[in-house]
């Protein structure tokens, strides 16, 4: 994957806005569980959708991160989803589904996080 720009969580709003103002379109965001931290990547496309640009930041699991929904509604669903599935603490969402966008009351919480301990064990084995 080319074009990955590492930023900090606080830059995301500014950087995102810059890209959008330049005519880019928000594509999606991906959250990865890096065991201790969460890695968040925002994808933007430009040039008739052919070129991709990624903004990536890494945060601790209990850190709050800003939301892009103040700038563009297109991140609404994905940010809610990351909040719900990964426990990413996104604040100031335009519509906050309160962790029940996808999941019902009796669904497992933050199901996408990897089991930390089990992983540690398996790593230990290796």
């Amino acid at each position, binding site marked *: *994957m080319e074009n990955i720009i590492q930023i900090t969580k606080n830059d995301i709003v500014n950087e995102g806005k810059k890209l*959008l103002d330049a*005519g880019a*379109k*928000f*594509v*999606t965001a*991906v959250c*990865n*569980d890096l065991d201790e931290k969460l890695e968040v990547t925002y*994808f933007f496309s430009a040039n*008739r*959708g*052919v070129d*991709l640009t990624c903004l990536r930041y890494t945060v601790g699991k209990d850190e709050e991160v800003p939301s892009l929904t103040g700038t*563009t*509604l*297109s*991140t*609404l*669903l*994905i940010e809610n989803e990351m909040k719900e599935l990964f426990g990413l603490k996104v604040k100031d969402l335009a*519509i906050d589904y309160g962790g*029940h*966008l*996808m*999941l*019902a009351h009796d*669904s497992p919480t933050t*199901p*996408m996080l*990897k089991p930390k301990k089990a992983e540690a064990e398996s790593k230990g084995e290796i």
Partner: protein
Amino acid sequence: MATRTTVPFGPQHPVLPEPVQLRITYEDEKVVEVVPVIGYGQRGIEKACELNEYNKNIYLCERVCGICSYQHSESVVLATEQLWPLDIPPRTKFLRTIWAEMARTHSHLLWLGLFADAFGYESMFLQFWRIREKVLDILEQTAGHRVIQSVNVVGGVRRDIDEAQKKTVIDTLNVVRRESDDLVNVLINDYTVKSRTVGVGVMTKAQAMALGCVGPTLRGSGVSEDARLTKYSAYGELNYEPIVETAGDCYARMKVRARELFQAIDLQMEALSKLPEGEIAIKVKGGPPANETVARTEAPRGELYYYAKGNGTRHLERMKIRTPTFANLPAVLILLPGCQLADVPVNIHSLDPCISCTER
């Protein structure tokens, strides 16, 4: 003074084949507020993709959506192949393209029918579906199944199209083109259809970009954007330019799909005529290396993003699926307010939401 009405629209509602709820507030019959409620189709496929051996992901991800099932299988194999990356034989690329366009043909016929049903044009709905069965037949003959083709594997495809099949496909496509031509002509010119779609649910170019819309929804608003422009599979070797309509209303979105239907048939014809000889699959050993990649394909409803991250084992570290509807769904927030109750289904269908893929 007029009192408002707030009611649920879905999850089980006759005009929505899939479970999704819109909590809509009306004034008389005018929509004044809408809140989409999703989550009825959530299964947890992304997580299961990490648990499965990577080959099984094809069969799982194909079932993210049964309508553009083919594009999902293509995307998932493309993503996995790109992790190495593998060198795929040209014939395979062409075969994949042919099936992709075949799937698009059936999907657009399906959509045109459902869209006709959204404004109560039942005879047209049935007529489109009648034609669609012919496409399903050639899909089944060539790929093995009407709906879930399961023809892609990492490294290639399972089946080939031989000369006899090629002839059947071409003959059938000609019939499909002729019959759809009549019907699309009605759809485009019919007074009642026009009065239900023209000017309904207008989304400007700027709005569509800001909401991050994709596919026909975006192209109906005058943006020429299409993942096929990235020239994946065999698209680089075919004569392709996206179809664009500028009005941004339901009629424009309908026209985009109607024209794409014929474009898809043309692309299949072209690909069939250029079909190179050669292998259809290569052997793959071991698991995908630690790497990350994005595969982008154009599903009938728009651009499909697969983000994959490998770790050298036979299990993927992470698989992220961004489906077209996921990108298009926020558009209901600006399409619905102000429209009439009767136009709600028309507007919703014009986006063609596919909830199963949105929620995975």
